[in-house]
């Protein structure tokens, strides 16, 4: 198999030949795949320091040492190199290290020793400064001793000599490993002709593919699994290729250290080759049985009918919601994107108040995960401040509330298979919308404590009343849609209202792009749907009275007509409005009547008339206690 050499490795090859000062920034704490066999076996995953040791040793440098301000100079891989380095700079070793402080400009400080190593021309040296981000507290507030230290390093780079080696001329090198280049003083690297910054990225698609296809592939499996499973996959290489492709897609954004953890986990759990990708779930969520894969198809086929029992008059919205679910279940949600680590689905529910948006989310949670509590609701009106993102994602170290973590990240950590419902999203502060962008795009988020949380098994639902009202030039609110409009008109006007909000008012069209075509507009509760809702609510009250009080409630047809006329008179507040009317017209007068007449249990009660015009509303009833007439 042809060697696959990463971009940063090529830059290292190129610039180590021409520049004496290299700054490696970015993913420096990760492991890396060694690309060619040499002093390290090809495709091995090794820490960056081991990688650099192997690379420079294989390419003609003879003394390679690593410095950290806590330990001094050392070489855990080849201590003899440290001895020779010490001789070259006139220092002494003590228990396998050359102790040296970083600060200051005294003769025995590390920068001075490095300057000596860089300027001598007897042996080709590489000095690697590990964790160099931490040598100073901040580049903006350096004391003179810190400035002197970096000044000496700069002088060391400027005075670098070249050395004749059996593999050609090599220059002495100084390499700094930093998290971000701006952890260093700007004057050290900006406009510095002898320095080069090389950025280390997380493994890209090709690197991940290589890891699962190259020499490392057998090491993902227990010996017995590999022995028993491989004969089949040798006969069916196309199936193996599909498994590998999926693995590559599922591990988007993972570091090499995480990939190595997957490899070890798969081996430890004796995962069969066919279950290669289950190890990703096991790693991310601690379970290997993904509820998405155990969903009952039969149950999903009847989902629409089941939903209609709970949510009335929203055929189009339910259809659109179920489309997203079907896409997730069939695994087609990632087809239009290279990133399958994104959430399973994103829905943006818009529409008037009380039309069933939240109820639909709850019904969906029950259908998918067997429990309404799998719908985790966030009231976004509580996140209207600019610092509210810390409530969701967790405060950074040193801030109040750091230990508690974030409400969102904690919820997903606790249950990664859930529906996240962000109610009234337009009330959240704009900084939170930026966080959502990352979740929608990458499917992952790192909380304040540094734990990565994965959203790839969630469905994310935003609800909003955007587009229902609009503001005129004077800031006055006007209804944008009304009950007398038909659904297509309501849908078009609400969609337009949402687009205007994100594009014109918020100035963030990219958020709208992430939501894509997943805006679902709920219709007003129309008269026929209202009747269904009313009937369902009255039936529920009758059932509860029977169960809890043994009171058999009957509403005569005449009385029910009176109730219906009053309850459905104004449907602008949707199902919630009908509920309020039922409470006002039926529950309150009924409880008052039962109390006044001491009918507290075991009776048959008939409502004969509603007086909806009186204040408060009242009713006429007759009761028949079990065994007597009242």
């Amino acid at each position: 198999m042809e060697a696959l050499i990463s971009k940063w490795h090529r830059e290292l090859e190129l610039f180590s030949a021409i520049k004496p000062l290299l700054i490696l920034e970015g993913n420096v704490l990760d492991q890396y795949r060694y690309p060619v066999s040499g002093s390290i076996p090809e495709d091995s995953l090794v820490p960056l320091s081991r990688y650099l040791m192997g690379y420079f040793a294989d390419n003609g440098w003879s003394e390679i040492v690593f410095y950290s301000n806590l330990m001094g100079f050392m070489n855990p891989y080849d201590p003899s190199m440290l001895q020779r380095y010490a001789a070259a700079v006139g220092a002494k070793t003590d228990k396998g290290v050359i102790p040296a402080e970083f600060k200051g400009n005294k003769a025995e400080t590390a920068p001075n020793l490095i300057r000596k190593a860089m300027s001598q021309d007897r042996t080709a040296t590489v000095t690697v400064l590990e964790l160099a981000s931490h040598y100073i507290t901040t580049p903006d507030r350096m004391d003179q001793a810190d400035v002197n230290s970096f000044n000496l390093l700069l002088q060391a780079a400027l005075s670098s000599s070249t050395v004749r080696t059996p593999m050609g001329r090599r220059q002495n090198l100084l390499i700094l490993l930093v998290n971000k280049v701006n952890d260093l003083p700007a004057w050290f690297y900006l406009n510095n002709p002898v320095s080069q910054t090389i950025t280390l990225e997380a493994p890209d698609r090709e690197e991940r593919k290589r890891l699962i296809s190259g020499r490392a592939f057998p090491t993902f499996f227990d010996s017995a699994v590999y022995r028993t499973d491989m004969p089949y996959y040798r006969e069916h290489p196309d199936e193996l290729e599909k498994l590998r492709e999926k693995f590559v897609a599922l591990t988007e954004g993972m570091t090499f250290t995480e990939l190595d953890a997957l490899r070890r986990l798969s081996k430890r759990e004796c995962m069969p080759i066919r279950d290669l990708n289950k190890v990703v779930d096991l790693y991310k969520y601690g379970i290997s049985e993904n509820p998405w894969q155990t969903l009952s198809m039969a149950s999903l086929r009847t989902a629409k009918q089941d939903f209609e029992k709970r949510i009335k008059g929203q055929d189009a919205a339910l259809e659109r919601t179920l489309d997203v679910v079907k896409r997730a279940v069939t695994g087609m949600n990632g087809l239009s994107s290279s990133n399958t680590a994104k959430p399973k689905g994103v829905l943006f529910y818009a529409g008037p108040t009380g039309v069933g948006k939240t109820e639909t989310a709850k019904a969906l949670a029950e259908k998918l995960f067997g429990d309404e509590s799998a719908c985790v609701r966030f009231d976004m009106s509580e996140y209207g401040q600019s610092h509210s993102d810390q409530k969701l994602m967790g405060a950074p170290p040193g801030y109040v509330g750091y230990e508690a973590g974030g409400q969102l990240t904690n919820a997903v950590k606790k249950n990664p298979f859930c529906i996240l419902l962000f109610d009234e999203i337009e009330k959240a502060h704009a900084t939170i919308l930026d966080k959502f962008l990352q979740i929608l795009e990458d499917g992952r988020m790192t909380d304040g404590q540094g734990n990565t949380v994965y959203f790839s098994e969630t469905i994310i639902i935003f609800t909003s009343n955007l587009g229902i009202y609009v503001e005129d030039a004077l800031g006055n609110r006007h209804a944008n849609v009304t009950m007398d409009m038909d659904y297509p008109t309501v849908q078009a006007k609400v969609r337009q209202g949402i687009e205007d909000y994100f594009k014109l008012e918020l100035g963030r069209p990219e958020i709208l792009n992430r939501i894509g075509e997943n805006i679902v507009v709920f219709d007003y509760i129309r008269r026929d749907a209202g009747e269904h809702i009313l009937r369902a609510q009255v039936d529920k009250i009758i059932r509860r009275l029977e169960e809890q009080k043994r009171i058999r409630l009957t509403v005569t047809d005449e009385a029910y007509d009176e109730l219906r006329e009053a309850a459905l008179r104004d449907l602008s507040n949707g199902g919630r409005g009908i509920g309020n009317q039922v409470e006002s017209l039926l529950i309150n007068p009924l409880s008052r009547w039962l109390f006044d007449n001491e009918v507290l249990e075991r009776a048959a009660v008939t409502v004969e008339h509603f007086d909806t015009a009186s204040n408060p509303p009242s009713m006429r009833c007759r009761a028949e206690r079990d065994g007597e007439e009242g």
Partner: protein
Amino acid sequence: MADNEKNPLDNLYEIVGDLWGTLRTDAAKAAAAPVKPAYKTSGTVDLPTKGEKPAQEGAPGQEAAEKAAPPKDSKPPFEAFWKMADETVDWTDALASAMPTDGSVTEEQWQVYHEKAEQVLSGDIRAYTDVMKAARPLDDLKPYTDTFRVQAVDADTLAVTFEALPEQLAGTVAEARHYLAGLALRCARDLTALLPVLRVEVTATLAGEELLHVTLTRREMHQVRFAFIDPEQYIRENGGIFGRIEPWAMEQQ
């Protein structure tokens, strides 16, 4: 092969532990313990053969070093013996890795390891036998019996038989079963750690009588939390059948 000849697979546990990504430093290399001497080769593997010199005590590698040291007492305690096991020999690592450059293995040796890994992973029974002869995975169980006989039934199955020591059965019946069950578990754990077999059939006998027969699977041996099980109960739950121990054991509480 004569006893004094060097078997290239001698330091198997040391080298084929976890190669991939675990490149040892000189310090770690220096800490590695001496390797086991070569072992007698013959058809099936009898561990050990009469008259053969005993193996060196102590196994190389940190994990192996944590194994219980064989007690000198003629009636060693069994409380925790079955909770330990040999380090797993990682044949897929051996197959996929390039030769370590830390000096722990010569190129010739590595060639043998690589070939052996291919043979073992293809289910070659002869390779299994070679590996067992070199690694002698049951050597540290000698104080409990010195009569292990291991046979590769097929690529998936190893059969182990051993003769129980009468003195180990001399206590109560419960103690005798504990001894047999613990030893069976250790056999299965050590053998599944060494070879990619799916199951190990263990049979314990004494004077021609079968005292225990059980088949233990690889998956169980790799995943059960041995610290929390009772060996006799575990063996029973996995279909193990104990024979009559009473003639050798004292019925006492």
